[in-house]
């Protein structure tokens, strides 16, 4: 009888601890920046969500396309309507793994350069990517921050010939996630 209760308790604790090993946030920051001699285009999204599993190094983020705010409202409409087609493809996502996770000691506070390996999906197109990011470990929080270059043409986002001088095919994406521990 006693044994059974202990086992039950143990099971529950195990489940709880498994839960506690997942860190998540719903207010991640994603910025994209396109630079051409004619025009710079910038958009900021503060509604990205992300989960990091400390047990096995699995990592995912999701960026709602409609959450990107542009300085010019019309640009935002065109971004959704003509380029990313957010009605059909509402989210951009990444799902993957911290490379060499086993060798990473999460107990030691400080900055680490790590690489996220996995699948990025934008505009309905999936690609294998590697994202070098900085992992910051502190007592109260963990952070993942990084920058990557994304080619619009890789994700079937068409830039019309008339706009080639205004929109760079290569965009810089900055991501910042902060997880409370």
């Amino acid at each position, binding site marked *: 009888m006693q044994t059974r209760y202990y086992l039950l308790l143990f*099971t529950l604790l195990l489940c709880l601890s498994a839960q506690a090993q997942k860190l998540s946030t719903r207010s991640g920051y994603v910025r994209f920046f396109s630079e051409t001699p004619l025009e710079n285009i910038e958009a900021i999204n503060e509604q990205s*969500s992300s*989960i990091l599993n400390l047990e096995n190094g699995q990592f995912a983020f999701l960026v709602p396309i409609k959450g990107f705010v542009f300085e010019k409202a019309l640009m935002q409409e065109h971004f959704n309507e003509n380029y990313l087609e957010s009605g059909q493809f509402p989210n951009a996502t990444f799902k993957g793994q911290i490379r060499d996770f086993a060798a990473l000691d999460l107990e030691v506070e400080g900055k680490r350069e790590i690489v996220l390996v996995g699948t990025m999906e934008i505009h309905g197109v999936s690609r294998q990517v590697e994202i070098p990011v900085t992992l910051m470990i502190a007592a109260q929080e963990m952070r993942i921050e990084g920058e990557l270059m994304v080619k619009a043409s890789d994700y079937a986002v068409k830039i*019309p010939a008339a706009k080639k001088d205004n929109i760079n095919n290569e965009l810089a994406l900055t991501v910042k996630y902060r997880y409370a521990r």
Partner: protein
Amino acid sequence: MRVKTLLAGVLLAPGLGWAQDDLLADLESASVPEQEYVLATWKGTKVVNLQTNELPARGVLQYSILHRFGAFNDDFFYNFLGLDNAQVRLTLDYSPYDWLNLGLGHTGVRKTYDGYAKYRLLRQSRGKNAFPFSLTGFSALYYSAQRFNDDLPRNTSDRFSYVHELVIARKFTPRFSAQLVPTLIHFNVQPRRQDNNSVLALGLAARYKFTPQHAITLEYVPQLNGNTYLDPVSGSQRSYTNALSLGVDIETGGHVFQLFITNAPGVAEPYVFAQNTGEVGNGDLHFGFNISRVFTIVKPRQFQE
């Protein structure tokens, strides 16, 4: 036996946890929005003469130039392709909120000055609280400053007319949108006692987007209780005609160009919808355009210093 079952459970529990451990699925299920507005039902705030359900975004100032050239059957080449007898309307409007747009306009026809308000009542949306169409109101007041040379006594109120439009719009597919627009046009004074001061019309409009930047638009505004007028040429009574327009929307960055052919050269709503004399069958067709340019006055929070 029971202990063994439990033990097996304990050993399997984390494994089960593994199998269901799809982080992305967790994020996706958490990201389904309660209500997500459908964007860009139309490219501009007008189809041709009718309003659309669109408003410029909050903090945006919009300047529009509306042009109606002379008719193809009115000495078209003598009038330099209709340019010499063109009608012009200018408007300037601003959206203090996402749901409200306020504007001022001037039209050459009868020296008309006007003020208008456009307001969102309901928005087509997806998600848990989905809604099938957008409902937008438009109310305008027009003052004709035209001089009268007949020495008859007149009141200032005689110079006013009003238009109210209720735009019921739906984006059916990313390319196809359509709308119904019950419209009320009221003139404080009509030329004759028997004329209806209030005219009801039912606007119909649709667009098909054939590239992301180009769309074809069609608009027809039949009157339900239209008036007649004495045609000075034939000397007979004729009914005011219903406005019909066919156009193309071209979008380039901050501009929307709308090029079209219409039988209604009045430019301002009261004259277009309730006092139009253009007969399509007689070739009373006019080339016209609406051009709008937007300026961001108040930047979104993310871009404020």
